[in-house]
Structure formats: C-alpha cells, structure tokens
C-alpha cells in the first residue's frame, strides 16, 4: 500500500534499467547517502568511529571485493587476508617513500599493486576449480604473510617487524595517524566505499559482470557462446584484488595505524570476510554491506549488552559472544542459505503486495 510500484512509469530505456527502479527505493537511497555524508560526520566520536563505523566501511569494501570474485565469478578464495596485507604493505611503502603524496592516491596505487599481485595468483584459476582453487588461494594467503614477515625491506627494517602509519594528509586534513579527526577518517573511507560500490554495481550489471556470471554458472557453456575464460577469470581476480587491496590499505593506515601481519591479516581475516559474503548473500552488492554490518556490529552490540548493560564478567561475555555469533551463522545457513540479501528481497516483495497478496 505504502511501498508500491503503481504509478511509477518508465518512459525511457534509461529509466527502465537504472539501479533502483522504484522511486521509493531511490528516495531511501539518497536519504541514506545524505544521512551518511551530512549528518553522521557531525555526531561521530572516537568510539563510534574506531569501534564501529570505520571497520564496517573498510570491511564492506573488502567483502565487495570478495563478492565479485566468489559471488559473481564463482571462484572461491581464501586468500583475502593475504591480499589485504599486500594492500597494507604497498600503502606503507608508498607512504614512507613519498611522504607528500596525497593519501587518496596512495590508497588507489596500493589497490593497483594488489590487483597486479592478484592477477599473478589468479593464473592457477584457469586450470583448477572449486575446493582446489580454494586451497591454491590458501597457499597465497600463507605465502604472502610469510613473505611480509620474512623480508625486512617490506617493514623498512624496523626492529619489531611492525608497520606503523605515519601522519598523512588529504586536502590539508590529517587522515591517518593519531591526530586524525574521526569525522575526517570516516568521510575518507565513506567516499572511497561509495565510489567503489557504485563501480561494482555497474560493473556487475554490464558486459563484464555478465561474463563473470556466465563463467560462474557454467564455464563450458560460457566458453561456447564466446566468453573468454582467461580474460574473464583474470579480470575478476584483478578487480576483486583491487578492492581488497584498497580495503587492506585503509585497514592499516586509517583504522589500525600499526599492523602485525600475522595477526591482522592472518587466515582469520580471510574467513571473516568469507563469512560476511556468505551471511550477506553471494552475488549481491547489498549482501556485501549487510554481511559486513552483521559481522562488525553483532559482536560490539553483544559485548555492550552483556558487559556494559548487564554487568557480566568479561570472560563469560566473550565466550557467549562466540557462541551467539557462531550459532547465528549456522542458523542463517540453514534457514536462509542465500543470506541476508535474500531475506531483504523477500521482505520487499511481500511488502509490495501487502496488504492484498492476491
């Protein structure tokens, strides 16, 4: 009744193929963007920025990246943490080698470097599929982490083997380092996420995205109708790695500020992002956001309820948190294997018909 298609006429092809065909969706989308860009920066504080919003934005970029590879092109990857590490170390090397470089350029360059590395590790995907590819990318994960631990050049020969983000600016505002305002860091990440999400959405609707999906659904058939598997798979690896590299660069420079490669970009990180896209929904841009939000917000919310609200001991709260998050993942996989994105789709369809379902 309130949420409806009726009366929303399209008179052009352009209007018909836009991202949000429903006017109400469009309005909601623009309202949300306006809220995120114009309201949140004025009310944000250190806690919300560094515990909730910035990790959410950055991990959303990473899960967009993995969703392109796994959700759209059907190539399972367990190397996300390793590729994020490439982004982070590329970012660090660029930041320290060119101190005056604009942070935005540093992050994008880090993304391109990761894309190149991703291409390299994507080559085996032409021969192997499914679980076997997952194992090959797992090798990439362990190799990359080992490499950044082993070769001192990557961490500028520092005694601890850690990399620390120095203060860098963008348009005169500090984006990284301890003196960066939370609002500035937030807007920096939000801008990158918005642009990358728009690009991802349009890539997946276009020719290249369709060729990814063709390969995903049946690679032999796709090849017969003229989709080049080499180009398609490698482009998926490159684009995905670009996103993941950008996320890794931001994760290191804006969010954490100091990184220990084995801990931050270990196999746990790869699994976390894989869980995000599985829970959010494979092959869905909305799903990437929903999954990232779920995995970032859920633990923080649970912790605040149990420790802050109910005053429970921290160790019990931490154990219950593990169980609840784990249990929710299992429940989701059983009840809705297509993830939060599917729930959202179903809810919208129901709402369109409500209250006259026949």
């Amino acid at each position, binding site marked *: 009744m309130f949420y409806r298609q009726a009366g929303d006429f399209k008179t052009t092809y352009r209007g018909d193929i836009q991202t949000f065909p429903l006017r109400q969706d469009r309005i909601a989308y623009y309202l949300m963007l306006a809220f995120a860009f114009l309201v949140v920066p004025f009310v944000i504080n250190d806690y919300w920025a560094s515990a909730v919003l910035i990790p959410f934005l950055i991990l959303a970029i990473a899960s967009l990246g993995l969703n392109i590879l796994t959700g759209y092109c059907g190539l399972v990857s367990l190397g996300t943490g390793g590729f994020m590490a490439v982004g982070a170390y590329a970012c660090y090397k660029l930041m320290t080698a060119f101190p005056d470089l604009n942070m935005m350029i540093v992050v994008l360059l880090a993304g391109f470097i990761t894309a190149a590395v991703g291409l390299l590790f994507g080559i085996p995907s032409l021969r192997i599929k499914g679980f076997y590819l997952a194992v090959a990318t797992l090798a990439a994960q362990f190799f990359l982490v080992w490499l950044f631990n082993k070769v001192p050049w990557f961490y500028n020969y520092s005694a601890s083997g850690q990399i620390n983000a120095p203060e860098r600016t963008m348009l005169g505002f500090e984006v990284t380092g301890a003196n960066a305002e939370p609002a500035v860091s937030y807007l920096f990440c939000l801008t990158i996420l918005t642009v990358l999400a728009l690009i991802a959405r349009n890539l997946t609707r276009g020719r290249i995205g369709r060729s990814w999906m063709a390969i995903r659904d049946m690679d032999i058939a796709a090849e017969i109708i003229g989709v080049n598997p080499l180009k398609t798979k490698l482009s998926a690896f490159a684009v995905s790695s670009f996103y993941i590299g950008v996320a890794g660069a931001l994760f290191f420079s804006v969010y954490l500020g100091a990184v220990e490669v084995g*801990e931050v970009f*270990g196999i746990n990180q790869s699994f976390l992002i894989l869980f995000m896209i599985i829970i959010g929904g494979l092959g869905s841009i909305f799903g990437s956001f929903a999954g990232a939000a779920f995995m970032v917000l859920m633990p923080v919310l649970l912790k*605040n*309820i149990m420790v802050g*609200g109910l005053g429970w001991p*921290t160790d019990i709260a931490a154990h219950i948190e593990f169980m609840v998050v784990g249990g929710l993942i299992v429940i989701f996989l059983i009840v809705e294997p297509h993830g939060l994105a599917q729930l959202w789709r179903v809810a919208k369809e129901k709402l369109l018909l409500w209250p006259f379902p026949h």
Partner: protein
Amino acid sequence: MKKLKATLLAIAVGGAGVLMSAPATADLVFPSLSYRTGPYAVNGIPYADGYADYMTLVNERDGGVGGVKARILECETGYNTQKGVECYESTKGEGALVYHPLSTGITYQLIPKATADGIPIHSMGYGRTSAANGTVFSHIFNYPANYWNGASHAVNHILSENDGDIKGKKIALVYHNSAYGKEPIRTLEELSAKHGYDLTLIPVDHPGQEQKSQWLQIRRERPDYVVMWGWGVMNQVAIQEAANIRFPMENFIGVWWSGSENDVIPAGAKANGYKALTFHQVGTEYAVFEDLKKYVVDAGKAAGNGDQVGTVLYNRGLYAGFLTVEAVKKAQEIHGTADITSEMMRDGMEALEITSDIMASAGMSAFGPEFNVSCDNHGGPGLGAVQQWDANAGTWKLISEFEPSDMDVISALITEDSDAFAGENNIEARKCG
C-alpha cells in the same frame, strides 16, 4: 511475549549503556585490558586478577588512594589488537588514568593514540623498548625493565655460567613470530658481535600450539642454550617439546613472560630446572598477602576465581597495581589534589621513586629492586634476576640477585630506535631538566 519484552529491555539497556557512558566523578579509573579467553588466557588471567585484587585491597584496606576509590574497568581483548583498540576507545572517555595493555601489539597501536589523548601507558616489561627514551615518548613508560634488558640478562646469565667466555657457543632464540618476539633480536645480535656466540633464530607462529619442526631443528643443530620469548600456550608447548627431546632444562631460559607456573606444570617433573627471568620477587612470603587474604580473598572480593594468588603472573599484576598506586600518590603529592587527571598521572609516573621504605610500607619489602623514573629515562634501571623452577616443590626460586644489564649496548640501540620513530612521526624531542 514476556521473553520478547525481556530481550527488548536488554537491548534498550545495552543501547543506553553505549550512549550514556557518562564520566563518573571522583574515582580513579584504571582500565584493565585483560584477556581471559583464547590461547593467551592462561597467562592473561593471573595478571588481570593480580592487578584487580591490588586495587580492591587498596579500596578495602586504605579506603582508596588519598581518599579516592580506585575503579577497575575490565575489557576483554583476547590479546587481539583490534579488540584492544576498541577497548581503549570505549574506556578512555570514563576518565582513564593509565593503560596497562599487557600486549606488545596493542601497546604499539596505542602509543600514538594515547599520546595524542594525553593518557599515559605503562607497558611494564613489554611494549616498545625504545619508549624508555622519555624525550621522544612523553606518555609511554616501560619501567622497571624492558625486553632489551631481558635479552642482556639472559646473555649475562649464560656468561656467568661459563666464566665470562661464550665464544663459539651456540644460542638459539625461540620466539613468538610477532612484534613481541622480534624485540630482543637486535640486542641479541649486537651482543653476539660483542661476545662471539652464534645466534640462531627460530620463529614460532601464533598461537604456537605446533612446534614440532622448531624443536626438530634444535635437536639437529644442538645449541648450547635456548632462549625463549614466548607467551600463552606457546610456553607450555615449548617446554614440553624441550622435555621430549631431552634438552637440558638448566640451559633453557625464558624471558619473564615465559616463566609462570602454568607454563611448566604441564610438562611435569621433566620441567625441573627450567629457568626464566624476572624483575620482581616470587612467592607469598610478603605482608601484603596477609592483607590480601583478609580484605580481598576471604571477603569474597577476589577477581576471577580467586585461585591465582601467589603465582608468578599474579604477583606481576600485583606489582603493576602497586607501581600504579604509588604513581597516583606521587601525582597527588605533586599537584596537591586527590582527584587527579591522566596528565597529572603522567607527571606522577615520571617522578616515581620506589624506595625500600615505600615497598615496606606497602607490605612488599624487597619485592622488586629500588628504582627511579625520570623525564628522559622512562625505562628505569632495567634490573633483573633469574628464577628457576623446582618441579618437586612446585615453586619458583630466585637463583640470582637483581643485576644490571649491559646498558652500553642497550642505550645506543634505544637512542637509535627512538630517533627513527621521532623522524618517522615528526616528533620534536622534549627538553629534560
């Protein structure tokens, strides 16, 4: 329906808790970034209990510090840096006076943040070693001893066992492959150049439950001594593996983070003779433990399960609490107010003097060495001792005095590393005195 209401209420309360974390007035807030879960919990629990119990003792026995009650804000980090940062952000708004991150990784994260927020960090025997240079690291303290002191203590101990000549001896460093474990490498390399021993580096990846290949390497290369920089579950696995290859335990020396009861007990009698460094006393032969029993344990106010009293890491947490309370007293004295801020706390830490009288009045006579902190030296004198495990008695015993380390080598390294940090971050060194 009732259930739903309860759930909604819980969420509302939780949400309110997030939004209204208003600063409570007139108490001394000490966040405890503890870890009672995960592979490092075996070591995290006793330390957190000791720290919390000392604060409880001060509240119950003395009515707080200078009449103001101490309040512990516990936050679970799981030894994870991301959670550590979240804990820092969520607790700093409550008027936190000083942070003990109990994790080198988290300390590295917090150094720039805490300095910008004006909150001191006390990384006691861990963290960034070069933070001992107070002219560069204004808000970071790592007294009474740091990793590089520890590395030197281990080498000194080996020297003393070999009458001062260890040329050609082989020493292997088994270390946690992280910022923590890598800290001593530079010092050990410098000392190797000075004393002429061969150094083999053997990294163990987090969490360290699997060390077969590392100990196979040790078995093959037969080092004369093994020095370990381990933490959490890695310690007990390493000691067990050393026992399995029949490595002589008296030639196996752990840093002070690899020498607690929980690390040696799993290996049973085979761990007998294992050595570790320490910068404070072990055991419960101190007056403070009677007070603890009376005011905290018997009153049912002990942190955790209350079963850790007197273990090595509990004592270390206790010592951290003691040093913190003494710094608060100093700050109150300097600024003439009982209700201090974090900046005043920093001044108190920088002017801290631990004399034998102060230790005696706290019931901890000769519990640690006497030392001073100053504006340019945030690391203290770096005295350390060696303790040895007696598996039959089930106790640690100190087998040396608190001795100095090779500061000629270490001071140069500290200056070099802190200058590099200052250069990277455009920090102007403070003028002292």
